[in-house]
């Protein structure tokens, strides 16, 4: 996978680039919006990380230019501005996701993975199969080893979100945002409580646990090796 990092802050850029390289990605860097835009349009990248506020061409404008040039590469926008309006601005400009500084690298990595995996909007996968678990989005039904799971709507949404990123870590923040639109940090371990309920229905009584915890990061739905 080829990644492009556009950020005028050398430390953040190096931190993100080093982290991604350790995961085996090829990483290019740009220190300003103009160079970044040029590289994004010339190179064939799988994902682009762009800082929102840069002198010269801002991240918002760079993404806008990429989109108006027809570039469809997933873009994750980084920012020090975290208000809902700022997120909306970023997404309106054409970014696919939005991450507020300071962030944990695991959060960034999980979000990039989710972006790369995100199928084109038109043919959203309607059916996910992970081991003997089948999540049928269209029928709003989940089965494990042929047995129908009795899930509440909230539980189904959570399972579907995990299934959509099967094999990839999904962080608590991503779940809070995508499931309920919570853009704040609840004091309580809300996600953990929901996961524990979901586990009781999805994993209990079956031969292996499909919902796995990744310490310090979040959860992943996958067939254990």
């Amino acid at each position, binding site marked *: 996978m080829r990644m492009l990092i556009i950020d005028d802050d050398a430390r953040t850029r190096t931190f993100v680039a080093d982290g991604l390289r350790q995961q085996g990605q090829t990483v290019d860097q740009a220190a300003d919006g103009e160079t970044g835009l040029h590289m994004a349009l010339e190179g064939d990248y799988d994902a682009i990380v762009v800082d929102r506020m840069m002198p010269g061409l801002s991240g918002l404008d760079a993404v806008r230019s990429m989109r108006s040039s027809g570039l469809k590469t997933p873009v994750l926008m980084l920012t020090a501005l975290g*208000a809902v*309006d700022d997120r909306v601005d970023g997404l309106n400009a054409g970014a696919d996701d939005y991450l*507020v500084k300071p962030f944990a690298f695991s959060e960034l990595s999980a979000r990039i993975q989710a972006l790369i995996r995100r199928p084109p909007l038109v043919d959203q996968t309607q059916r996910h199969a992970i081991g003997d678990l089948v999540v049928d989005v269209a029928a709003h039904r989940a089965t494990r080893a042929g047995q129908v799971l009795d899930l509440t709507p909230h539980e189904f949404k959570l399972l579907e979100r995990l299934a959509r990123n099967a094999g990839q870590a999904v962080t608590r923040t991503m779940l809070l945002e995508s499931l*309920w639109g*919570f*853009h*704040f*940090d609840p*004091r309580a371990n809300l996600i953990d*409580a929901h996961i524990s309920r979901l586990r009781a229905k999805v994993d209990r009584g079956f031969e292996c646990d499909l919902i796995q915890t990744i310490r310090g990061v979040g959860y992943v739905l996958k067939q254990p090796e």
Partner: protein
Amino acid sequence: MSSSNRNRDSAPSVWSTTGLRYAAAFSLLFGLGAAVMVAGVDYGLMRFAEAEVRDGLSHQMEVMRADADRHGTAALVQELNAEARNRDARRYLLLVEAPNGSTFSNGLTRLAVNATGFRRNLPNKARPARWPDQTPNMMTLSARAADGGLLAVGRDIQHLDELRGGIRHFALWSGIALILLALAGGWASGRLFLRRLESVNQAVGRIIAGQDSTRLPAVGLGREFDQLALNLNRMLDRQEAALTALKSLSEGVAHELRAPLNRVRNRLEQVAARIDDVDARDDMIERALAETDQVSALFEALLTLARIESGGVALHVAPVDLADLATTVCDIYRPLVEEAGGDLRTLFSRPLVIQGDAALLQQALANLIENAIFHGGPPIGIEVSTRASDGKAILRIADRGTGVPEAEREKVLRRFYRIDQADPSPGSGLGLAMVAAVVNAHGGELHLGDNSPGLAVEIALPQSQLG
């Protein structure tokens, strides 16, 4: 010291006061206006007076000419000479010269008249020196009689010039007097202003020097000035309140930051000390990271709160069904409550549509439920209900915890306020402040009451007319 010196240096002198400047400007304007008026009066008056004199001369001339034409100029001369012996000075000066050489004159000379027509003789002093000093300041009219004799009549117009001079003198001196009066008035009112404003300036100086509680005295020059002082005082009150709030906020932030930063530091020191014990080290690092996350969350919450309170966040107002919103939030929190062995009961009357910002209302409700989770037990028993009452949508969250004593109910809405400073429960101390700000931004009311036992929070929001 230096500030008060500067203050005195820059105190305006009476010569530069607005009152005096206005007085000077107005007296200049008045002077110009009066001069124009006097010039107009002078011109009009002279025209009128001259016309009178000319009429008089013409009339006199007609009488003389009628005589001369009927009896001849020589007869007129004779008659006039006879008459002059009986009567001395006449109003009109006459000169008659008959063709036979006989003449009559009672002071009018050939030099003062034209061959025919009107002539205005300048006063002696205004006449060039080469002219004989014989013609007084007069207007003359001359004509020829039928027999060729010269008829001339003149009238002294010295009095007209005197009148004119008098008017000019009067105008000049009264103008000067008025200007002086206006300047004196301006100076006096300027001084009065300065003296009244001096006390205000002194008060301002004290405020600048840091005596924040000083307020401006009444100016005492009129209602509008006192109103100004009153409004300025109100502004100062607000500023002081805002400043006090800011001070306590920065103290709060510093305090709230110190604790987690200290914990991060301690953890990192432990890591440094136990660098070889890989498991313990990883655990310490993870906890240190969690602490930094808490600091980030605190900042995030503070920023959001500040933006809501300052009106910096434009509310994304749309019709929101409060019952739907509460159902969702309760479903999100129910597993957590039940896992802790508590129960979360709901009673919703629906639909209950208001105009509001769903995201902010959701966060406010989440904060209240979290408060109930951390303070509402044990065992945790939470009731969330909605109802419509008196055109308002009421959202009520009640718990069965220790509640909030009446005296503390205002204070718990402040940032970082904790009833029990040793309270170990997590949280930024901003939850209720955020709720209050959100309710305020929606034009609603927040009420903290007694659930005996426990706390009952009621949010009343204006119900949508459309709903």
